């Protein structure tokens, strides 16, 4: 019996060691900030290891290719950001520290496994590992009714969607006789069963459950409630991580298992993408709670990113990956400011709390302005670049009209993003808030805004990175 090649799995193993040691260290450390520091340092080390550990192992079940590396980078940056912004936030709220970071890292391991899954079993288990951790994280503030409600809703619908995913997997297994992603794809191509009704219905199961994870309409309904109710730091975490992970498996499954069926699933995804952009952008207009607004905005962004899948080409896939990376920065940026305001006892989540922010905190307001510009997609920010590449991919795939629709919805999105800007710059403040930009959150905000501008001005390396990383 030979020992499987463990090199490709080293990042996951390191993360597991990190999480297990966190569980132990938590018992002995009184200064709980060190746990966050430990998490951040550990994750940084893992980022480095990610680039060196490539290969296929466990008989093709675990694939550490450049595609997965790109996504793992996103997940790890995301967990680092989440760990940093949680410190201040948790101090004011929950008493559980160690478990919080443990679950954060567990969820990240789940995402990493998803990104690397070469087998539907592994894919499902990674997804469950991520999902179960995030359910708990959403409800981690036990005394808060909203948090509990968010967790319950997330859990119920999440379990429902993963049951649907499982049935899709079983259908695929029955039709092709394998659970290995590459083998299934080869089998479908070899047998040429692209008109098999049951196989096509398998697509429906996959789209339903993946659509749930990326928050695509009409499977998006959990998103606003969960993002709203969950602790803000967790909202920031899960609006990027699980979504990017879901996009990772979306891309891998649809581009490797079902490429032959793309004529069918593209037609299924187009209405979903349009509906997603419509719901996200239109309903966001009426929101007065910024977390809820950002939730709808995240739905809308899922709609844009879905265009990359619809393009069903390498160009589209790399545009989608690029967009995920950009979305990581802009979204975290928006949430950092929300958290910083949240940390001020007087301020809540209402967008009216942003009134006159430019008077009291000009720099913070300016940074938020850039983030909002980026979310809207105004050049020269990263958001513009991300959308540009996505739309171009769709146009090149022959769906020019879809790009037009997306641009119209982007224009609508300007209403609610710029409303925040308007509140910040045009109005007199009600509450005098003093934000300090010299603490960790502030520094992180500056870094994130720098990245947003940097990618916007100099997108080529990132685009190249995403282009090289496709399957």
């Amino acid at each position: 019996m030979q020992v499987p090649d463990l090199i490709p799995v080293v990042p996951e193993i390191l993360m597991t060691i990190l999480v297990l040691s966190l569980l132990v260290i938590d018992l002995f450390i009184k200064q709980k900030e060190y746990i966050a520091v430990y998490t951040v340092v550990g994750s940084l080390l893992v980022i480095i290891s990610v680039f060196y550990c490539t290969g296929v192992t466990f008989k093709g079940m675990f694939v550490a290719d450049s595609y997965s590396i790109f996504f793992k980078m996103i997940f790890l940056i995301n967990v680092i950001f989440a760990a940093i912004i949680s410190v201040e936030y948790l101090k004011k709220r929950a008493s559980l520290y160690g478990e919080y970071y443990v679950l954060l890292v567990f969820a990240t391991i789940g995402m990493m496994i998803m990104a690397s899954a070469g087998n539907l079993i592994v894919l499902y288990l990674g997804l469950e590992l991520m999902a179960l951790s995030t359910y708990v994280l959403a409800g981690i503030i036990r005394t808060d009714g909203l948090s509990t409600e968010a967790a319950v809703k997330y859990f119920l619908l999440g379990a429902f969607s993963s049951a649907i995913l499982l049935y899709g997997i079983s259908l695929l297994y029955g039709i092709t006789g394998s659970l290995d992603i590459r083998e299934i794809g080869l089998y479908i191509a070899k047998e040429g069963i692209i008109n098999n009704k049951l196989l096509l219905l398998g697509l429906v199961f996959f789209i339903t459950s993946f659509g749930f994870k990326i928050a695509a309409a009409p499977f998006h309904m959990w998103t606003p409630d969960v993002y709203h109710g969950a602790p803000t730091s967790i909202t920031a975490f899960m609006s990027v991580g699980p979504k990017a992970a879901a996009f990772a498996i979306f891309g891998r499954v649809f581009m490797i298992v079902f490429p032959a069926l793309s004529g069918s699933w593209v037609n299924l995804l187009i209405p979903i993408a349009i509906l997603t952009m419509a719901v996200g952008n239109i309903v966001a207009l009426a929101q007065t709670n910024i977390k809820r607004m950002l939730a709808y905005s995240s739905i809308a962004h899922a709609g844009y990113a879905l265009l990359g899948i619809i393009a069903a080409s390498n160009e589209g896939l790399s545009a989608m990956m690029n967009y995920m990376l950009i979305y990581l920065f802009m979204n975290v940026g928006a949430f950092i400011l929300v958290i910083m305001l949240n940390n001020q006892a007087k301020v809540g989540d209402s967008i009216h709390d942003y009134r006159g922010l430019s008077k009291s905190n000009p720099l913070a307001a300016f940074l938020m302005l850039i983030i909002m510009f980026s979310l809207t997609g105004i050049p020269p920010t990263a958001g513009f670049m991300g959308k540009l590449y996505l739309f171009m991919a769709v146009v090149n795939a022959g769906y020019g009209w879809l790009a037009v629709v997306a641009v119209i919805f982007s224009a609508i999105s300007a209403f609610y993003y710029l409303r925040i800007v308007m509140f910040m710059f045009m109005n007199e403040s009600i509450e005098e808030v003093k934000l300090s930009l010299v603490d960790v959150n502030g520094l992180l905000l500056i870094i994130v805004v720098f990245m947003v501008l940097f990618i916007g001005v100099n997108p080529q390396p990132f685009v190249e990175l995403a282009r090289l990383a496709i399957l």
Partner: protein
Amino acid sequence: MLNQIIFGYFAVTMISLALIVITRKNIMHSIVYMLILFFHIAGLYLFLNAEFLAAIQIIVYAGAIMVLFLFVIMLLNLREELRKSRFAITWPIGAIFVVLSAVMIIISVFGNRFANVGNVKISDIEKVGHTVAVGKLLFVEYLFPFEVASLILLVAIVGAIVLAKKEIK
């Protein structure tokens, strides 16, 4: 012929039990019917040469998961809830969606060509025993998913404790 009769019995019983489970007003009753359903499923597994899974079905599902449900229900003391309506008012809409989807999918099942590519013969499994066969596979080929499953269980432990323990001031 015997095969068909046994399968028919299992199928009809299981579908009826499933329907009974989801329509009971009292959760306790549901759970008891669920247990009976699980025994039938285990029987079906035996019928399909999956002895180890049949045992797991009884031990884990019936023995652990359902008991956990019972435990929680007793903990919560849900007497009062029984007086309220069990179904959401939207249930007919759900029924329409479900029935129509199910009919469409079931129709497309018939005449469908399923794969027949495996190289494991039932006689091989019977030779070593199902448990050994599954075990060997699990610890050699499927080691990685198995390890991931262990992480999931760990998350479940941590998560359940985090959520359910009382706030300590």
